[in-house]
């Protein structure tokens, strides 16, 4: 069955290539986004010996920066390339910054109306991860908890239903995401993904995603993070005037491998995230988010609840000042609660150059 699906998508690629139109005048776009951040992080140490809050991190940083180049070959063919410059703590500020390729894909025309085939390193069409616009400083729920990567290599058919009644995506990815240094290609099996959004009435969007990957042949032998990974996400968005609320529920079923016992352990994970916002004026927006994440449903006392409140102020188009208060509270009372006060200026630009 999986072979059939693979053949189907490779056939889609061949069909898509046969649709390529004649070359046309090409516009190109240069754009970028930077996040200049300041933070104070404290831990509420509630262990047997410490009771006071301890500041564990404070300072300024430019954690991320995207630089993007897009070229419109014809009306229906576009290439896009994004470099992700990162200088966060996990990179240990090696040489000031690191660089990852975040996007490198080409959109090709496809036979269905309002559809295209996207080939290459691209967004991961799972849950709200590809909708997320960083209106809150923290990463999107799936990304934050390491449930799935925000980008991956693959071939995805994507399009819109007639009359704006929603959208769909389906295709195959490698399944390991774009952060190769953290999660190299561990097997030969692709991940299959399907995502659908339906907008029955303006202001109400319901949808769901499903992603599935099996182990296949492991290279090298023993480098096995999981035997299977099934991820299901349900989403809801309600928007009315200045009010906008996003919500998603996630269920994940993973078989993890132990090299010491040479056995697989099944782990079921689940969680949800709700993010309402209210635009008071064109400049001011107040936001909140509540996440609940259970990394092992069979294990007690391991949930983490995240509460975020924030305010955004648009200084001008493309320059956003963000202030967030964030608390990550573990269910286990012996584990420290983390509190963060975050400030950020997110600035972005885009310039279209017509040929």
């Amino acid at each position, binding site marked *: 069955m999986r072979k059939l699906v693979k053949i189907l998508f490779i056939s889609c690629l061949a069909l898509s290539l046969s649709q390529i*139109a*004649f*070359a*046309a*005048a090409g516009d190109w776009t240069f754009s970028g986004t930077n996040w200049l951040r300041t933070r104070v992080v404290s831990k509420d140490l509630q262990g047997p010996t410490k009771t006071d809050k301890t500041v564990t991190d404070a300072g300024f940083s430019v954690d991320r920066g995207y630089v993007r180049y897009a070229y419109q070959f*014809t*009306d*229906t063919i576009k290439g896009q390339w994004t470099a992700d410059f990162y200088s966060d703590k996990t990179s240990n500020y090696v040489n000031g910054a690191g660089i990852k390729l975040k996007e490198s894909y080409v959109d090709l025309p496809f036979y269905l*109306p*309002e559809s295209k085939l996207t080939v290459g390193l691209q967004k991961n069409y799972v849950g709200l991860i590809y909708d997320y616009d960083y209106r809150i400083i923290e990463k999107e729920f799936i990304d934050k908890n390491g449930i799935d990567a925000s980008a991956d290599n693959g071939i995805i058919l994507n399009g*819109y*239903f*007639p*009359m*704006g*009644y*929603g*959208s769909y995506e389906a295709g195959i990815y490698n399944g390991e995401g774009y952060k190769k240094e953290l999660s190299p290609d561990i097997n030969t099996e692709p991940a299959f993904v399907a995502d659908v*959004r339906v*907008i029955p*009435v*303006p*202001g109400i*969007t319901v949808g769901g995603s499903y992603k599935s990957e099996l182990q296949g042949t492991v290279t090298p032998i023993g480098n096995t993070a999981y035997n299977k990974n099934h991820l299901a996400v349900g989403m809801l*968005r309600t*928007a*009315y*005037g200045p009010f*906008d609320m996003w919500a998603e529920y996630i269920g994940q079923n993973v078989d993890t491998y132990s090299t010491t016992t040479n056995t697989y352990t099944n782990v079921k994970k689940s969680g949800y995230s709700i993010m309402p916002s209210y635009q008071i004026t*064109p400049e001011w927006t107040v936001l909140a988010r509540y996440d609940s994440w259970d990394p092992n449903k069979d294990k007690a006392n391991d949930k983490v609840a995240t509460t975020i409140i924030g305010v955004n102020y648009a200084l001008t188009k493309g320059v956003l000042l963000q202030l967030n208060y964030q608390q990550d509270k573990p269910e286990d009372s012996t584990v420290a609660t983390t509190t963060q006060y975050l400030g950020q200026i997110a600035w972005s630009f885009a310039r279209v150059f*017509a*040929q």
Partner: protein
Amino acid sequence: MKKIIKTICLLGLVGLLAGNLTAGQKLTLSGSTTVLPIAQKGAEDFMKANPSVDVSVRGGGSGVGIQAIVDGTVDIGDSSRAAKAKEIATARGKGVTMFANIIAKDGICVIVNKANNINSINLDTLKKIYSGEILKWSDAGGSGGSLVVVSRDSSSGTFEVFNEKVLKGSKVREDALMLASNQAVLTTVASTPGAIGYVGLGYVTDEIKALVVNGITANKETVISGKYPISRPLYMYTNGDPKGLAKQFIDYIMSPEGQKMVEDQGFVAVK
């Protein structure tokens, strides 16, 4: 000291309220540069008839106008194309209903120098001429030796129609004259033997010869019916049925007076 602060605050509040009470009503439009002349002249006429109303009109292109309706930053989004499924879906997701008000039609006439003996052309030949596959009039059924291809610049709405309906993604030949206005195209074609160009229906004069395209003559009837192949509707998008000032403005554009103004601007009236 406290009294002074209180007084300042009260005065500030009164000032703010007074400002709000005396401020007139405001209507904002942005979008297509093709629709811009209609929007600008319509705004002038509307403000004359309604002196308390301030109508602000900006260009930016059809995509900008549609996005502005999606974002709720304008009352009317001007567009020379229908909103795409992606744009409608984005709007619906945000609780916005894209409502298309067709206020005019735009027909593009293919014109040649009066000395040319050609009277009609088909879209395929036209595409070959503009993409550089045909270089001589003798290969296109006309007279006048070498072809002089005249086009509008790629930022114009007229070029958008021509690109969509004729070129269909092909690139305009590199030696084409890319001119900034309908009038410039008209003047160049009228004075250059061997020239071919295209202008809005309202700009056609007896200085040049307008060609029959695919057997259809460009006129008000064939453009409105959509029979003429190089034509399109022009839109003023609103969030849902137009209401309040936006409705009054669109009602004016659709009135006999407004539709006459549409024709005066070189477009085809729809009523």
